[in-house]
Structure formats: structure tokens, C-alpha cells
């Protein structure tokens, strides 16, 4: 997806990146790796292609393998292309006991995809995740930086409509919360 465009942060993003790197002492730029990966993911279509990871490695003067190692560890970095809206349904105990399986099934039916797949229009990717710390409002899901709670099938229908109409790419970077 992003292979065709040049991988280069915008000037504005680059300023943020430099500010983040300066937080750490000389020779320890690698410490800024996690936020940089989030920024890169937000900037380059919601996922980290090898080329994007290599770009981050260059910025931090580290070896690409050091980026792969970290990026592959965390589930919030996508190493494959994802749809504009990444739907992450919690499936841990409390959500499960409140019907998360049904919610997932409903998504699958509505979107015509299985967990882990992306709709053919590139709009939605469905994913299941572990506890997001909002068990009190189970079942719940996360899309980018937003939680959707106390889910029912109806709420899911509305949500799908709303996200489709909105047309924006979901990102954890909302309000710069990952930094």
C-alpha cells in the first residue's frame, strides 16, 4: 500500500519526532522507538511495512532488526495492511461472559469477513484482543483511540454506519495519547 509513496514524515511530524528523541540522553535515541512507531503507523496507512520500519531505524541510527524485534512484540503495531477502521473486540473473560462472542459473530455477518480479515473495500479490519481495562462496560471494543462500550447488535449496526460515513482512518494517536 504505502510502497508506492515515498516514506518520509511530514515536516510537522518530523518536528514532533525530533522533540521526542531529544527527551533521551545522547546515544540512547532508541528509547524513542515505541512512540515513533506509533507516529509512523498513523502516518503511513495504519501499518508498519518493512520499508517504514527501516525508515524509523535510519532516523534512530539503529539496525532495522532492532526495530523488527520491538515492532513484532506488541499487538498494537500492525505488520500487515489493515482497513481504515481497525475494530478490536475484547474477548477476555468479563467481556466474553457478557457476550463478546456474539458481538464478534455479528460483525462477521455484517461485514462478510472473518476475524483477522479486511473488507474488500478496505474499510474495516476485524480483530480480537485481550482485556482493554474496561470490564465494567463489557462487552466492549476499541477502534483507534475510542472505546465503544456496553455493546449490543444494534449498537454495532449503528457504529458500522457511523464509521463508514465518517470515512476517516482510525488511529491510536488521537489527542497524541500514545506520546
Amino acid at each position, binding site marked *: 500500500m504505502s510502497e508506492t509513496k515515498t516514506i518520509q514524515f511530514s515536516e510537522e511530524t518530523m518536528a514532533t519526532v525530533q522533540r521526542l528523541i531529544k527527551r533521551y540522553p545522547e546515544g540512547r535515541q532508541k528509547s524513542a522507538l515505541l512512540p515513533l512507531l506509533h507516529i509512523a503507523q498513523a502516518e503511513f496507512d495504519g501499518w508498519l511495512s518493512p520499508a517504514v520500519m527501516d525508515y524509523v531505524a535510519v532516523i534512530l541510527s539503529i539496525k*532495522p532488526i532492532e526495530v523488527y524485534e520491538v515492532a513484532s*512484540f*506488541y499487538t498494537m503495531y500492525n505488520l500487515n495492511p489493515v482497513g481504515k477502521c481497525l475494530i478490536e473486540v475484547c474477548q477476555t473473560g468479563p467481556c466474553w461472559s457478557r457476550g463478546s462472542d456474539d458481538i464478534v459473530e455479528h460483525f462477521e455477518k455484517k461485514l462478510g469477513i472473518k476475524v483477522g480479515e479486511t473488507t474488500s473495500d478496505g474499510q474495516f479490519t476485524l480483530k480480537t484482543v485481550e482485556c482493554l481495562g474496561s470490564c465494567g462496560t463489557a462487552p466492549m471494543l476499541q477502534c483507534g483511540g475510542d472505546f465503544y462500550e456496553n455493546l449490543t447488535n444494534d449498537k454495532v449496526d449503528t457504529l458500522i454506519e457511523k464509521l463508514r460515513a465518517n470515512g476517516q482512518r482510525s488511529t491510536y494517536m488521537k489527542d497524541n495519547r500514545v506520546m
Partner: protein
Amino acid sequence: MATIIIDCKTYEVPLGKNVLETCLNLGFDVPYFCWHPGLGSVGACRQCAVKVFKDADDKKGRLVMSCMEPVVHNQHLAVHDADTIDFRKQVIEWLMTNHPHDCAVCDEGGSCHLQDMTVMTGHHERRFTFNKRTYKNQDLGPFLNHEMNRCIQCYRCVRFYKDYAGGKDLDAYASKNNVYFGRAEDGVLENEFSGNLAEICPTGVFTDKTLKEHYTRKWDLTMSPSICQHCSVGCNTIAGERYGALRMIHNRFHEKINGYFLCDRGRFGYEFVNAENRIKQPSINGDVVERTELETRLEKIMKSAKVIGIGSPRASLQSNFALKTLVGEDNFYHGVSDHEHDLAELAVRILKDGPVRTPSTKEIEKSDAIFVLGEDLTNTAPIVALAVRQAVRQDLSGEPEKIHIQGWQDAARKNLQQQRKMPLYSATIHETKLDDICTSANYATPEDIARLGFAVAHCVDHNSPAPEHFPEALQVRARSIANGLLAAKNPTIISGAGCASSAVMKAAANVAIALHKNGIVVGLTYTMLECNSMGLTMIGGHRLSAAFNAVINGHADTLILLENDLFRHGSFAEVGDFLARCKNVIVLDHTKSDSTDRASVVIPAGTFAESDGIIVNNEGRAQRFFQVYESTESIQESWRWIINIGKTLQHPKLQTWQNFEDISKAMASEEPMLQNIDEVNPAVDFRIVGQRIPREPHRFSGRTSMHAHIQVSEQKPPTDDDSPLSYTMEGTRIQPPSAMIPFYWSPGWNSVQSVAKYQHEVGGSLKDGDSGIRLLEANAASSLVYFQGIPEAFVPLEHHLWIVPTYHIFGSEEMSAKSASIQKRIPTPYLLISAVDANIYHLKEQDIIKVSIANISYSFPIKINRNIPVGMAALPYGLCDAPINALPEWGIVETSPLTELHDYVRKTKVQH
């Protein structure tokens, strides 16, 4: 000491260790994976659980990871109570959920820690019925197989490869049930110590690819204690054979030298033994002859000829000494270029007559400051480079102790240590693989390296001479290196024959002596070019040029050349001319070379695997290697051939020698520097409760049938007249002396981890102590004075390049370069020059440069290097036809320069 109670019994144990080590030392079989005595603890695998109780009244206790639990006084522990047994069984069960259970086709099978631990914990029934995760394996190059499905996520591989060995291209990816250990993509594992993964990995993920070519289970190998022959460090190895071919090299623990590790040259270089170009039959003028014919011919030649002998730095002391005895001291020449000999002799003189002790490799690991002069250790003495890395990784700041973090608490230590490291100063001709951990890395010509060394020595002690016209900037650097060394308690100075400069070696000596005079316990290490360079120097011999003259002047007409390709030690023209002038050239060697091609008589010598011998490493430690297998009748040790020749000639001494011991005794009485060489190992008739030490494990199979194609009835196994080892599985199961351990095995411990059972304490000395005898000790009453003769600063010469040798772990050493797997890693020949010089001659990377060295024209593709000094070039040793032995030497550049740029650069350079 602490009193601890395990399973209701009381033990006195040392403090400062973890519970796992302590239990293992006491003989408890506690299963473990991620802990390794060389790597410490991280608590990753959860296999080593035991119970700790609050006190004697606590009946419940809590499960802890024994590898993470320090021993404390009055500790109550349970190893064998029901909960812990059950827990450990569960752990292995979950570690095994994804394991493919493919032991039958796994190269690790039969020497697998995972098998051993599975049996030990009693997990024997698979309850997990779901699909297993499967991985794609990577092609990791010629040395290692990769079979990721077998992984149990212990993390040992990355901890060794990255943390311990400084590798950059192996990592752990992903998380949870999908952790993957490998490179970012298929490709050669770059680190020079990658082969250790085959031993470090407790499962069959990383296994020896060269062994796979001729696979044999460990229990089916005939094994001997051996010594690596591929550099001057002398690492201890186990060499295994089956069906007359050498099949593998494993590490053999030596507490003072290689510990648990080998380098890849040492591990995979063995294949030359099985190579096509082995000499297997005697030949005369190119025709294979029977032994009797050979003997008749030799007798005839020897009786009528004026014979000289040329020895070898890669042949054993026994073979060199036998030749020296045969031809007589006056007619024995040492067989290396005069220059190389002078360097080795200088090293021996400094270490023998000087006041500074040469440390073992493991002592280098404990140094608190290191100064390397001129040596690219990773490529000339790899295990020393690994030791230097460990020295730098030490945290001697006292911080860990303050918060009670112990040495084995690997993760905590690393976290606390961060960027803190021990000082390492280096001065080399170009960058090295140790630069990433250097406090200061300096790049200079050998002359300027020597000058820097002399300047450092002068800063330490003003009585040591100072270089003249030494630039202020460098003076500052010298002062800071001197201060770093003076602040240390036990620094080590390392140099060697690598950059072919006696001035560099003398500078290193001055630094060491100066520190010694300051009351500092300093060590001085010299690495040499070949496995027995030191030993050959101790035996002595006349210069090679004198051998050439002897033939030219007609004093001699026949040459016996011992395991030596003379073309590596002299120019092609000179050596060619010399060999042509000899009426008879008799060569004893195991592998074809340019020298054997020109021989009239070729005698098939045994390699180290088919021979007994002693070699002396760079520490001056004499070590014995044992024959692994009797080869065909026509291949035997050079020394045995020489004894035979002596017998036919009724040589007064040689005819009284029968075996290895006789030669060693004669050597001890005749060679002043080898006075106790016969004590290197127990006598031939050494027995343990009347029994020999078996080379084969008790499960060795096929003995009665493996030679059935030759003779149906079982043949009598050969007897070993040279050592107390037997060639069969019969013999004692009691632990032999350290020098004679043919393999490690203990009931329930089939993998390499069983070495623990041979140690006093896990990770410590072997029960019988270290092996080998040190022949070089510091001379307290030394009268060695500071070396003078500081070279002038290097000045580039127009149209010239000052060519010095550089080294490659794969390719620079003669024998390993003939090993099939190593050959895949040998770089193509090149000449390394600076970017400035490349500009002067208008050359790009890989362009051909023409240089004439000693009046002969050579063409090399160039490699451009940022750090190599301007006006200097480096030529890889052993890779090119060029007369590397003549280096350093000025090469006249025949490629025409780009005039303007040339003038400009030269002018600016002169101003500096």
C-alpha cells in the same frame, strides 16, 4: 558459607550463588533450560522451580525459580516434594505443546538437553490435542541448520549471540505463542561465534550443518580430546569420528582457555581432514608406491645425500623434534619466514625473560582495562576477542553489590549497568569487530601504532623512551590511555605478530613493563600466526634463508619438508628456485599444496585427527591432542614416519624410540625450553582401576558389523601404544584426568550440559583442574630493559602504498581454508585502501589496482575503507598469491594517478 536445608537434610554451601547452581553442585537433578553457567539467570523458562519455606514450621512453602533465588543462611528448600515435581512436569508439558516430537529425525537426538529434561521431569504423555504452531525456517549459511518448530523459547540463543558475543543479526520476534528466533531474513549468520548456538540451544533448533553432511549420533562417535589447530589460542575440542571420517568438533571445556565456547573457524575448519586433496598414499615422482618401495627409496636417498630438514609451525613438537633429531641440529631449519620467526622469538624472549606474566584467556576476561596494539583479534585469535568482550562487559563499579545484585543475575545487572563498561583501548590498522565496545579506537600504520604505544609507555613511566616529534593531539590520546591503564588493578596489554611489526610488539612490552614498575599486576599477551608458532620457536632451528643458502652453496642437496607449504613463507620465485635446486624434495604432509606438487617423494602424514602430538599455544601452554582414529595403514604421524626412517638408517637415537612417550622424554631431556614436556599428560600405562579410558560411549552401535564389507568376522580393534585411551567402548566410566576426557556423559545427562558433572562446581574447574603445562612464566629477577628503537612516523610516499597484512577468520589460516563450509565464507581477494588513495588513483570500489611488490606486478580489486591511513594498504593474509610473508613492504602503484588531486592531497597531508 551458609547452612541450608534441602528436603530435610542439612548442607553447608557457599553464599553468593543461586539455588539452582547450589542444588546441581550438591548432586540434585533440578531441570533447567534458560540458565547457563556462562550466561547467568533470567528466569525465562520456569523449568527450575523448587519450594522455599519461611522457616522450619512453614509446611506450605512457595514455588520459586531456583535460578533466580539467591542462597541465604538457614534457607529451607524442597526439591522433591509433590508440588514442585508436579509443577515442573506441567512446565515441560506446556513447553512441549508446540514441539514437533521429531527426535527420531532431529540432529540433536541423543545429545539433547530437552530430551534429558523431559525424561527427568517425568513428562511422558502428550495431552495437548490441538494444532501446533509451525514456522518457516531460515537458511543461515553454511554452518547451522534452523528448525524453529523445536523451539521452547528459553532465549539462550539471543542472549549468547547478542549479549555475550556481540552479534547483531539474530533476534527474538513477536510474543506469546509465536516467538521466533532468527535473522530478519534468510542469510548467513554473521557473528564469528555462531556455531556455539548448536551447543547453547538446548533443543534441535540450531544444529551443526556440517555434521548433517555425514550425520552420526553422539553415541556412535569415536571421540578424542583434541586441541584446535586453527590459531595460536589452542582451544580444547572434542573430535568425533565414524567410518574413517572426522564428523564433528565440539567444545571441550577448559577453564583457562575457551570455557564453553569455540569460534566458527575452530568448529567448522575440521573438514579439511576429509577433503579431496588429502594425501593418502606415498608417491615417488607423482606415482603411488607401496610402502616397501618408499622405504627402500628413502634409505637410498638418505644414505647418499646431504640432508637438511625444515620444520613447521603447524606440526607438533614431536614431529619437529623428531625431524631435528634425524637431520641433526645443524641441519634443522624452522620453516617460517625470517621475519615471522623473529616476531615469535621476540614474543618468547619477552615473556620468558621479562617481568610481566602472560595471562590465560580467562584471565583476560577478568582484566579491568585492556590495550590492544595492532591485532585484529576477531580474525587472528577469535576466542581472545570473545574474552576481551567479556572483560568490557564487566561492571566493576560496585553499584551491583550496593544493591545486592549478584554476578549471575543477568537481566538485573544489565539493567543497572546500562552503558557502563570497562575501558578498552585499541590501535589497529583499520576498524575491527571490537570497535563497538572500544573506549577509544585508533587507526594507524604499524609504525604509528608502535609510536602511540611507546608514547603511552612513556606517560606511564618516564624512563621508557618517548617518540620524537609526536603530535600534541596524539600525545593527549596517549596520556588518556596511560591514565586509564594506571587506574586499573589488573590491565592486560595485547599485541602479536598480526601486523608484522616488531616495533609494535616492543611498544606493547614497554607499556606492560612500565605498568609493572608502577606496581600494577599487568598481563601481556602476544597472539601468534599458527597453532604451534610458540612451540616451534622453543625448539629453535636455523633461519629459512640459511636453508636456501645451504642448497645454493652446495652444502645440502636433499630436503625433508615437514607439514609445511613453503610458499606461504617465502616468495614464489625464491621458494620455487630453492625446491628446484634440491636434488630430492621429500615432503611429509597430509594435504596437497604447491610444495607437495614439487616434491619427488611425498609421504602421507596424519592430520591432528590421526595423530598424537603436543602444541604450545600463545600463552606458552603445552597441550596434548590425542589421535581420534587410526587411519589407513599408509597414513601415520609425521613423527612416526621419521622414527621409521631413522630406524632404517640405524640412527643412534631414533632407533631407540618406540612411541610417543619416548620422543617426549627425549625432548624433555634435550630441549632446554621443554624440560617438563613429558609431564603434559599421564604416562602411556596410566590406567584407572586397571582400565583404559574409552573413546566410545557405552551405547556405541554397529561395532560387530560396521566393517563387514571388508571382513565378516569382527576385527580386533587397534590398540593405542601412545596413550591410555582405548579405541572401543570398553574401559572405565570413572572421570579421567582433564586432558583426557574424550566426551561428556553422565546418567540422565546426554547433552553437552553433562560437562557440569565433570566440574567441581557447575561452571567452575574440572574436578582434576586445568590441563596443559605453562612453559612461560614471568621472570621476577628480570633484567629486561625498555626497548629502544622507536620507528619514525609514517610518511606516505608518492606513487607508493605501504602494504601490510590483514586477516580473515575464514581464509587466512591454511588448513581451515580447505574446509568445505569455511570456503563458502572466504572473501574474494582484494586490496584495502583509503578513500583518499582511491581518489588519487581515480578508483571506485572493486576497480582493479596494479601494484608491484618486490618487482612483481599484481592486480587486485580494491576495497575502499574510511579509516585505513592514507598511503597505506592492507592485503588479506592467505587469500592472494601475493608474497604476504614479505609484508610490510612498499608497493609501487602502477595505476596512474589523477595528477591534480594527487598533488593537492599530498600537499595537505604533509602539512599535517
